[in-house]
């Protein structure tokens, strides 16, 4: 486990934690397969909690477009890059 985490960048770990907090799931279950409306628990209510969690974790405010497009875990990484987060 420790070894696995060492291969991940710091921002990746922070992103995982932000997702876990926002979607109320365990950090271990955060992975690239997470998808809006398909992953149990990631519904429209949880989505707003996730956005709030990303906003405060990275101290940014996602634009409306990005709120809409943030439909999977990989997509979140891609969008956050635009806000200067480096992975």
């Amino acid at each position, binding site marked *: 486990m420790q070894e696995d985490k060492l291969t991940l960048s710091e921002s990746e770990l922070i992103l995982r934690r932000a997702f876990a907090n926002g979607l109320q799931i365990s950090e271990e279950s955060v992975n690239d397969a997470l998808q809006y409306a398909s992953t149990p628990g990631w*519904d429209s*209510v949880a989505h*707003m909690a996730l*956005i*709030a969690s990303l906003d405060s974790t990275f101290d940014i*405010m996602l*634009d*409306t*477009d990005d709120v*809409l497009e943030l439909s999977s875990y990989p997509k979140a990484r891609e969008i956050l890059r635009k806000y200067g987060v480096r992975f």
Partner: protein
Amino acid sequence: MSAELTAALVREDPYAEDCAEKATRLLAEMNALTSFHAERCLPYLRILSAAFHAKTQFDCLADLPFIPVRLFKELELRSQPQELIVKTLTSSGTTGQRPSRIFLDKSTASAQVHALVRIVRSFLGIKRLPMLILDHPGVVKGQNTFSARGAGILGFSQFGADHTYALLSDTLHPDWEAIGSFLDRHRRERILLFGFTFILWQHLLLVAEQDGRKLDFGDSILIHGGGWKKLEESKVSNTEFKQRLRHTLGIRSIHNYYGMVEQTGSIFMECEEGYFHPSDYSEVIVRDPRSLEVRTMGAPGLIESMSTIPMSYPGHVLLTEDLGIIQGPDGCRCGRRGTFFTVLGRLPTAELRGCSDTYQVPS
């Protein structure tokens, strides 16, 4: 400004299309939706057969087969199999009536969100604003079934940040402390207020007035909807509504929206001049409540609302139970193009019988 940039901005604006071009585009989209639903929704096909000679292609928007909005209370109207339905919306339902049930598949739900974003963003800009929800947090509880109120709050939440509820869950009394600290956190920022017309009137404004409280929401924009029914009974006009909100809560800019759970997403926003505007996703015409003939500009009648959004249920052309007046094609002083209209209110129930009887569905 480069031509490319201008074109991009025009596409961005959902109120910029030329009237004639829009009519042609919309007619094609509506005809396609009519065929689509006729093939997939048996009760809808029966209506077409009974009242429209089973035709699905028409030459002008006014000829399109409309169905009374109340049919969604009486029938289960679905154009996709149950297993593809991801969300069911229900209307609040007036006392003694069954609520409407609107079945959404993934693509309809996502089309709703995209339409709403494009429409509302043209009023708010792309930056999300600190958002005070003039309701209580209990409204958005529930998993796949949402009340129209809950769906409205969630839909608008994507334009907001630091979402704060202004009312307490159990008592619906204003949470003055939460409101106060929200305002402290966002002094000098533009803020978004969202709520349902009657709720914010009854549970926020009237309470503040009774308590003699005065607040200043600063650079704020209020978007509200959901209908005036009970306010009409207490004889409050839109002008008075705005004046009192400005006076007591200091809200600068106030926009009502007209919409229905049966056509979520493609809402009609009230412009700065006080008129409702259809967007790229919608159109309205007005019909005589008895003959159902199309009424000309300036004459009151039943509002027929068209939307390009509904794909999982046949709700693209609906005859509402609301009275309205078409004020004109183009020419609103706000600068938005196309039809603009006013809503007078609900048609008295006694008269409603007449027009819904026209559409008895053969069993």
